[in-house]
């Protein structure tokens, strides 16, 4: 029950990768022989499939990266950094994963601009009134997640984006936790940058997506420099290809990209809304059952939530909770979940967290509850 960290690979994903690795393996973009050509086609077809998954028919809005963290860093360096001037600000929230917090913090330090942080209430909902007042015409970006990986809060993303868009502020949405079960994409959400990771949606490690709205694709400069992004190299000067190809420096993770395509297929076959309702059901059940464990504190009570529940047991450190539950065969996560600002704001040092995916069931929740009750009894 640690699916917010990484999901299990789908069998079809592993199979697609092995098939490619053993029988179709070749470098892309640079070969004329059949294998290389087929690999290139598969690679570019995947771009189209990802675009479709994101309700777009423009494959050139889709760049392959190593994951959400890389995608966000690329936006920070390849889009935002060159634009920043003294007096500017970046707006993000207290609830972000470090991946969507530290890159902005570092930019703010380096360029001496202001990092403005939208606070939340004690339930774990963002304060939209504050959000409105923090955005002004010096705001160069709003960076916000779709779903909190610690509290499971589903942010009112349309409303949030609407606020920024009414001032024509570019918006980045960290969709790492929502790519599986929500309709996402820069078009449907009306945002400008959208990021997620393969490994959190049944796909491989080491591959992720950065989608950029047509409005800003031309502003994207290369991130890494090397082969594959080149128009022309001279001793004095190099010309680069356009986005998304200007981010493909070096040999890309072709097999990972092919695995990602298989993962999207897997998701479509089950259906995003089926996933969502399955996980919703489990979440409601888990909340109900957990609240009956004596000495438990469930962290946050957001208006809308999905699939992720943080809690603490009285007098037992979450680390110890996780260790003992591990002995009962239950994998849950304890710690700061890469959201130290959020935990500090709530006066916490760590939490235990369960998170569900499609292969979890009611039985898992029952086992969890039994274990927690036993642990409380043992400890006291």
């Amino acid at each position, binding site marked *: 029950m640690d699916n917010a960290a990484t999901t299990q690979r789908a069998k079809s994903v592993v199979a697609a990768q092995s098939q490619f690795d053993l029988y179709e393996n070749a470098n892309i973009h640079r070969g004329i022989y059949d294998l290389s050509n087929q690999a290139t086609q598969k690679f570019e077809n995947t771009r189209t499939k990802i675009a479709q998954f994101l309700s777009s028919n423009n494959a050139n809005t889709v760049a392959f990266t190593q994951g959400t963290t890389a995608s966000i860093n690329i936006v920070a360096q390849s889009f935002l950094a060159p634009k920043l001037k003294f007096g500017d600000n970046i707006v993000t929230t207290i609830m972000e994963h470090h991946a969507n917090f530290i890159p902005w913090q570092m930019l703010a330090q380096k360029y001496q601009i202001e990092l403005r942080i939208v606070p939340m209430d004690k339930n774990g909902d963002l304060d939209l009134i504050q959000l409105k007042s923090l955005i002004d015409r010096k705001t160069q970006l709003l960076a916000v997640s779709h779903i909190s990986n610690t509290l499971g809060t589903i942010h009112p993303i349309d409303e949030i984006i609407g606020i920024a868009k009414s001032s024509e502020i570019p918006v980045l949405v960290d969709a790492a936790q929502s790519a599986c079960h929500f309709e996402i994409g820069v078009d449907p959400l009306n945002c400008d940058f959208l990021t997620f990771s393969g490994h959190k949606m049944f796909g491989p490690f080491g591959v992720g997506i950065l989608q950029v709205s047509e409005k800003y694709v031309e502003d994207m400069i290369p991130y890494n420099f090397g082969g594959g992004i080149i128009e022309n190299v001279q001793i004095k000067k190099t010309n680069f290809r356009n986005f998304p190809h200007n981010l493909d420096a070096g040999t890309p993770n072709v097999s990972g990209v092919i695995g990602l395509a298989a993962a999207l297929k897997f998701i479509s076959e089950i259906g995003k809304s089926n996933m969502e309702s399955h996980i919703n059901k489990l979440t409601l059940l888990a909340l109900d059952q957990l609240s009956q464990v004596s000495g438990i504190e469930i962290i946050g009570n957001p208006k809308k939530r999905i699939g992720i529940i943080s809690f603490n047991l009285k007098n037992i450190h979450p680390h110890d909770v996780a260790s003992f539950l591990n*002995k009962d065969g239950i994998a849950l996560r304890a710690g700061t979940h890469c959201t130290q600002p959020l935990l500090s704001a709530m006066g916490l*040092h*760590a939490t235990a967290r369960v998170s569900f995916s499609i292969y979890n069931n009611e039985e898992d929740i029952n086992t969890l509850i039994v274990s927690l009750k036993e642990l409380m009894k043992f400890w006291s």
Partner: protein
Amino acid sequence: MTKQELQQLFKSEILPENDNPYHFQEPQKASFSIEANNTMCGDKYTLYFDINEGQITSVYFYGIGCALSKASISIMCKNIEDLSAKNIMALSNKFIDGMKQNHSIEHSDKKIQMLHQLKHFDGRVDCIKLGWEAVKNHFENTEL
């Protein structure tokens, strides 16, 4: 380590130490202090040393963390209080070595020996070593 063995060890050793830790408070005065943090899991302790004429006279600690890190630091404080800086380094080195998977090291102190058993408790070695590593790093780089 089975669940039963683990429960046994916690019941008889860790939880009592965790509930009644040694010198667990911020002392009124201290000659210097050392931080012991593990931010992966949120553990945060401060160790307070008082010295007098080049001799350590007391070691206190305070902070937040799991039962294992707290119990381990408590046991450590008790053990290093009368030692010279050199001997503290020697002991913490020995302790940390003993936490490696294939090492087996004897300690005269029964509680320290008990901590070593817990190295087979997956993923918790860092908790147990937390205070010891902090002390070792400090004394490696600073004189008393």
